[in-house]
């Protein structure tokens, strides 16, 4: 199995421990404001990882991912405020409801390819947002959204209500997700996803149920986005439709593109970029988007595979060899 390791474990174990160490002690040395910045970095990391399953692993263009995020957040918001169900109980419920939603809306469109799927998912994301604004069954509160959402509580005095606790909550979930996703990547499911991305027809002809694995990616991706939605809703104590706009989906798309499709370390870098960028460039708020656009263009020109693309296999020496056609047995 040494081969598969992307340097995330294995040879760079020391670096990994150092990074984890920094993450653990970081919140004890900075103000609440910077803890919150790191919290949102965590939310974007989780969302990036969830979109990466669909976009990075299977290569399905999904520009409506904020829709799944919204379903998770609103499931939590509504069930918590109307029925008083605790946030942590709603964590899996939000995941499941976003997953079921993805299954229902994606089933009829899953056969679409490339740009066509992209356009339909944009529509899906926008329909979710518009539906939330229209306040169906008086549940979503229209443009104002839902507020007075509880803190996550383990019962008794163990309530997550400070920045630092939220910080650890989100990052523990991110770490657990990463462990699960690395295992998936190295399983037959991860390989099946990659095969579909590489060549759908060959995947089918190799015995992979293309439709099933595409839907599976959407469902798992949506469920993870639903988890992010749950924590987001309780952290902000309120949700409103404007948080789940098309722009949000674009940002998630950028995380995967910047980081590198299918690369987990890449996604973390992409999420850091997207969530920390506005903070760093706050003094030049007016030119923020301009710089952002410039960075994206330069990225596509000089590093189209992302900052940290997933490495597979060994050296490049054979590409040289393949130019000189060799007879081999």
């Amino acid at each position: 199995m040494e081969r598969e390791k992307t340097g995330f474990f294995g040879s760079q174990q020391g670096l990994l421990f150092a990074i984890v160490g920094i993450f653990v002690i970081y919140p004890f040395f900075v103000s609440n404001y910077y803890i919150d910045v790191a919290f949102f970095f965590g939310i974007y990391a989780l969302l990036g990882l969830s979109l990466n399953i669909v976009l990075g692993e299977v290569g399905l263009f999904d520009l409506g991912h904020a829709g799944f995020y919204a379903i998770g957040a609103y499931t939590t918001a509504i069930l918590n405020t109307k029925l008083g169900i605790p946030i942590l109980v709603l964590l899996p419920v939000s995941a499941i409801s976003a997953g079921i939603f993805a299954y229902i809306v994606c089933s009829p469109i899953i056969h679409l390819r490339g740009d066509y799927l992209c356009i339909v998912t944009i529509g899906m994301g926008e329909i979710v947002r518009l539906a939330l604004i229209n306040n169906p069954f008086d549940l979503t509160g229209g443009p104002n959204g839902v507020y007075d959402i509880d803190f996550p509580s383990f019962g008794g005095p163990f309530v997550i209500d400070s920045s630092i606790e939220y910080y650890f909550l989100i990052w523990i979930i991110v770490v657990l997700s990463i462990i699960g996703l690395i295992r998936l990547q190295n399983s037959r499911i991860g390989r099946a996803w990659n095969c579909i991305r590489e060549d759908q027809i060959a995947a089918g002809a190799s015995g992979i149920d293309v439709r099933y694995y595409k839907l599976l990616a959407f469902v798992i991706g949506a469920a993870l986005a639903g988890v992010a939605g749950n924590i987001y809703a309780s952290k902000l104590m309120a949700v409103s439709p404007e948080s789940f706009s098309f722009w949000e989906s674009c940002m998630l798309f950028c995380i995967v593109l910047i980081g590198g499709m299918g690369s987990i370390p890449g996604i973390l870098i992409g999420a850091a970029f997207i969530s920390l960028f506005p903070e760093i460039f706050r003094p030049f708020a007016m030119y923020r988007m301009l710089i952002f656009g410039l960075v994206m263009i330069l990225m596509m020109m000089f590093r189209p595979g992302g900052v940290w693309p997933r490495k597979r296999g060994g050296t490049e020496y054979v590409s040289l060899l393949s130019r000189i056609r060799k007879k081999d047995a």
Partner: protein
Amino acid sequence: MPKGTLHKASDTVLETRGLTKIFGGLTAVNNFDAAIHRGEIFSLIGPNGAGKTTVFNVVTGIYKPEAGKVIFGGKDITGRKPHQIVSSGIARTFQNIRLFQNMTCLENIMAGQHCRAKAGVWSSVFSFSSQKKEERRIREISESRIEQVGLGRFRDELAKNIPYGSQRMLEIARALATEPTLLVLDEPSSGLNAGETEVLMEFLKELIDKENLTILLIEHDMNVVMGISDKVAVMDEGKKIAEGNPEEIYNNPRVIEAYLGTEEEA
């Protein structure tokens, strides 16, 4: 293997009955009947556009036929999805090689083992011992297949980086990794040089001898067709115009006519 022997019906691996595939106004395959018997190398030949690849695509589930049946191992598999057909035991390669380019050679072969494994999402995420065991088995089988086609030195190389001839062999290895009873090869020698073709022919003969396998082949290289086939069927304009052992086909006037006719047009 004796050539041209009579087979019992139970020996039939694949049978097509009245297979017809229509694209718009064009009847690509017209009422195609064939029976392929266990342990044989069956070649399908014919001029370009005769409908050979379409027959393959119907058999392997990529197209649905307008009429007719595909019977494999006594079961009607007409209109099943490609992956179901692979699970039932038909594996194929493509005329224009279709590998998973950005995956390693070993991973390409492991993809073939996919349909023989079961691990689901939970057992993969929590890494149950059954899943670990299964992964080990997939790896072992794939390693032995990559050695079998002589590509062991490329195991960790991306499929797109290996030489063309090796890519062909890799595709065959991927097909073999699905543990098929019928191997369907679409022009396996196209793009290979004389030496590579020789190696391929030897390899296919050895396969038939060693494994419980039947091979269906589309081929343009007459040396290959005449050299390894037990039976040859000739197609022209969607219809089967002749069938027999290689010598019979070689001397069949209709076959010569079909080939020469297209030569002139081309």
